[in-house]
């Protein structure tokens, strides 16, 4: 199986200190990979490294045959990686549809198919297409954020804690939609606080601690691991 994304022993941080001390993660085509770990493990930082928001000082990031280490975010976007930040991930004062339009800002030509796809994935939003994104519930806002990112038709979608602050009902819904997105041909890398639920639904998972790989394997295998279970006791 050839990987779509491959982070190899990546080190780096925002300032002078290295938050990541050698993180290696691969994502295969049509795969959901979850990154979990305790607070301060460098989960979100690892994701931001992929998107060029980090100063990478060691290791390599390969995407779809290109070495994208050190690329600027806008170049990475054009290459087919879209990123959904954890907070402030919609244009609150714009309508749902305008959010999708902004997602497709770099695309030229006919966008009907792209709109059909996102409204197909998020049927609830079709009725709310003229509502302001800021007026939606947290779960629906998360859908708008994902939809916006999908408008560029990425090969890889990066989701930073998409279920943070959502009720269990919406969490399930986001996970279900994430699977649907995968089935439409997109690979997904997501960072999660809700480790148990996330490992249960993903294809493969990574457990990070203090900026380095600790465990990896299929979601089921990780859930069965005693050490992992202990790490997230009560989580």
């Amino acid at each position, binding site marked *: 199986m050839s990987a779509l994304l491959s982070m190899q022993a990546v080190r780096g941080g925002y300032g002078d200190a290295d938050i990541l001390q050698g993180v290696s993660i691969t994502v295969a085509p049509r795969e959901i990979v979850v990154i979990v770990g305790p607070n301060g493990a460098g989960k979100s930082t690892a994701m931001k490294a992929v998107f060029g928001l980090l100063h990478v000082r060691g290791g390599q990031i390969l995407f779809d045959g290109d070495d994208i280490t050190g690329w600027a975010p806008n170049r990475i976007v054009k290459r087919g990686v879209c990123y959904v*930040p954890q907070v402030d991930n*919609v244009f609150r004062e*714009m309508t749902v549809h305008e959010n999708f*339009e902004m997602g497709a*800002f770099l695309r030229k030509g006919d966008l009907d198919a792209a709109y059909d796809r996102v409204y197909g994935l998020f049927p609830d939003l079709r009725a709310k297409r003229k509502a302001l994104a800021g007026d939606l519930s947290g779960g629906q806002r998360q859908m708008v954020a994902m939809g916006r990112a999908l408008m560029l038709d990425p090969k890889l979608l990066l989701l930073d804690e998409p279920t943070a602050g959502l009720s269990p009902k919406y969490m399930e819904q986001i996970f279900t939609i994430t699977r649907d997105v995968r089935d439409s041909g997109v690979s997904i890398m997501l960072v999660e606080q809700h480790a148990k639920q996330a490992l249960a639904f993903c294809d493969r998972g990574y457990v990070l601690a203090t900026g380095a790989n600790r465990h990896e394997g299929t979601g089921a295998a990780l859930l069965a691991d005693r050490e992992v279970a202990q790490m997230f006791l009560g989580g």
Partner: protein
Amino acid sequence: MTFIDFINFHIVPGVVLGSIYAVGAIGITMVFGILRFAHLAHGDLATMGAFIALSTMGLFGASPWVGLPVAMIFAAAIAVGIDKTFYDYLRDRPKILTVMASLGVALMLRSVVQVVWGVDSTTYQRGIVRPDEYFGILLRDRELYTLLAVATIVIGLEAFLRKSKWGKAMRAMSDNPDLARLSGVDNRHVTMLTWAIVGALCAAAGFLLGLNNELNSMMGWHLLLPMFAAAILGGVGRVEGALLGGLIVGIAEELSVLILPGQYKAATAFVILLLILLVRPRGLLNGKVL
């Protein structure tokens, strides 16, 4: 005083003045919202626009209205040029330094006006114009045309911001700059476009003020306070808010003479500014707070 007199002596001039403030305040709110700083050279750019219109009129010997589009185009170019020369290199430094630079630009623009056009007051047209009566409301031609011009400008701008791709990009940049950049919006394009529009709006405000009042080198500086009061009252970043805020400030100024000596008209805007910052800093339409 009868009701219709009250309308004619206070509300009509207030609405006319307020609509002029609104045109300026829309520009202020756009710079505040999209570029995120208080642009203190706004008033003096309006002065320059008013005088460019005067010279255009002199050149063609025609109606002052010929000067409006010319002044708007020139002021747009001047605004873009000012940004490239004096603001752009401060982009990555604290925004307050750009505020300071804009105060310097205000001084420079004003001294250019004073050198080129002098310091004496002047007007576009001489002579007394009698108002016409419309259902009891007295309105001069120039007042009517001012209201029409403001309506055209606001509707045109709203259409641009709501319908066009780059208008949406400007709103996106005002709403969530990080996400706009993640979506591939080029900050430099948006900045340039914003300055072009803001410059044109400045010229329009200056022209309309000159048309209804008089032109002098300090006219724009005295516009600054009511324009900022209007922008913050409406809610920073909100075009509709700036329109509403402008009208309120204009009417409030004209009503202030009922309780205050006339020379303190200009204090009304200041009081409104402090009050809104005290009780509702997001403004009437829930704008941003920097």
